[in-house]
């Protein structure tokens, strides 16, 4: 991958980045270019999500390759952390600190005056709905509240890039919804949000694009549907509710892109697996007209990340880079 200077300055770029922990692979030959919006890193434990985030923030150094965050190398903390905030998974805090003290202190380390740090701290606490508990010791907080403190600390200096490692862990459903709304608002304001998660339906809900990781390799990247388009061979499953599923199944089987057609137990529906969804939908339209089949609904049943991810990591379709 070749990346121009202007692309380096306006995006987050990984160029042939590898990281080994002694002889253990962290990530291997990662090439990525991340645009503004919400980008989710998806993969099971040990797939390399946290390693990528730690590399992006300079907590780890790449064994080879180059990383640039808006044109800045992560090895220049005094530059990069003016623009970047990282909400890591490390659930630890300086002993005895209150939420306000904790956030304010690290803003002072940024170089803010006491007044500036105080104002920014208050604003950050409000953004994560933690003002009431702000002057209590963090050690007495629940896991969800600690998560919010870390989030507030990472956004307090209004960074352009926000890196969040499993940010929804420990949050109750209402808090999750609130935080996702906050992420959406930040992304809509032009920020870069890089979020790791293994809860795929949440990734599906909030992401503009995804990076799928497995065993240290980027298996696929792009928009959720774009990732699917990359996988020509992956059959998608579609549920059709209609009055004559047997007729429809028989006609669909005449076409080679239909991998499977299975009548639903209630005999009012049909599961179809097809390798070429576009051709399938054209065919379905034609058959419905010709056979006068009454269609109640047509819905892809697995057009989500989980299906893509499972396919990529369990079959030969996962061509690691």
């Amino acid at each position, binding site marked *: 991958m070749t990346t121009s200077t202007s692309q380096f300055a306006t995006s987050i770029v990984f160029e042939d980045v590898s990281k080994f922990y002694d002889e253990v692979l962290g990530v291997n030959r990662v090439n990525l270019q991340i645009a503004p919006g919400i980008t989710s890193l998806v993969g099971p434990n040990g797939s390399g999500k946290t390693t990528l985030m730690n590399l992006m923030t300079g907590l*780890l150094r790449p064994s080879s390759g180059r990383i640039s965050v808006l044109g800045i190398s992560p090895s220049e903390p*005094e530059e990069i952390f003016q623009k970047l905030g990282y909400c890591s998974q490390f659930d*630890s805090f300086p002993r005895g600190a209150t939420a306000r003290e904790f956030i304010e202190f690290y803003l002072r*380390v940024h*170089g803010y005056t006491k007044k500036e740090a105080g104002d920014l701290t208050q604003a950050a606490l409000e953004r994560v709905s933690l003002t009431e508990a702000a002057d209590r010791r963090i050690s007495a907080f629940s896991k969800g509240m600690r998560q919010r403190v870390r989030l507030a600390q990472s956004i307090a200096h209004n960074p352009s890039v926000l890196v969040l490692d499993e940010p929804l862990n420990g949050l109750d459903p209402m808090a999750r919804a609130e935080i996702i709304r906050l992420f959406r608002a930040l992304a809509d304001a032009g920020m870069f949000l890089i979020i790791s998660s293994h809860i795929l339906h949440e990734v599906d809900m909030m992401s503009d694009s995804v990076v799928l990781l497995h065993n240290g390799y980027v298996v696929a990247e792009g928009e959720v549907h774009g990732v699917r388009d990359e996988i020509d061979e992956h059959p998608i499953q579609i549920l059709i509710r209609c009055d004559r599923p047997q007729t429809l199944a028989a006609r669909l089987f005449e076409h080679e892109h239909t991998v499977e057609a299975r009548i639903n137990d209630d005999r009012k529906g049909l599961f179809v697996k097809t390798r070429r969804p576009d051709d399938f939908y054209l065919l379905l339209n034609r058959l419905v007209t010709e056979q006068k089949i009454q269609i109640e609904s047509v819905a892809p049943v697995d057009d989500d990340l989980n299906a893509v991810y499972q396919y990529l990591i369990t079959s030969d379709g996962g061509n690691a880079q």
Partner: protein
Amino acid sequence: MVTDAINVNPTKATSWSLWTRQTIAILGLEIKKNFFSRRALLLYPIAGLPLVMMAALAIFTPDTDEMRNFGMLSQVYAGVYGGLILRTLVFFGCAWVAMNLFRGEIVDRSLHYYFLSPVRREVLVVGKYLSGLIATIVLFSITTAGSMLIFYFGIFPSESKAYFFNGAGTSQLLAYLGVTILACIGYSAVFLIVGLFFRNPIIPGLLLYGWEWINFLLPPGLKKLSVIHYLQSLVPVSMSDGPLAVLVEPTPAWISVPSLLLFTGVVLFLAGLHIRRMEISYAGE
């Protein structure tokens, strides 16, 4: 949930004034930790031991003419200072504080917050080092001055008054304080870097302790590869190291003091180089 941010940019600053502000911010938190955290609790008995000892010694020292001329008193204090305060308590006190500056935060898994701030890591080294230095200097200066004053004034209050205001007492006290401060400067730097390089710094700490203790047996060239050699050259009352000691001329103050400061500078420079490339991996801590 409020989604609006307020826009505040850090007040414009030149590099030096920014670094100064950042160092002061780091000092604020670290000094609090060095004095009042749970880890700091061990320091108080270490620093307080000589005060109790000297008070006890003052109570049980016989009132003889030999003692009353202060020659013997100063020899006794020099022995306690050199053997206990300087070589052991200041050594381990600095070790405890300085090794925990980074190692303690790695164990607590909180060092990454500093690493995720827009602060030069060298500034972090300086800030943390100064915080440890302030803590050890305050505590061990009190130990040094307190133990000396308790000892002298506890035995002969009125004579000691004259000794300190008109005699050699004050200059000796200031010299001991100077040596204590230099010891804190040197040992804190050594143990800061030990805490950075070693996952378990106790073993290297004990090896260093042994090296400092056998200094009197070492040939002249090797003696100079220690902190204690330069400190001993500066103590106002010299003590015999016994019949096995390899005798060398004390290094003059104009060499000892700059040498220690230069050594400290080099060690901190190396710590800065190391931390610049340091990764955060709490696994195995």
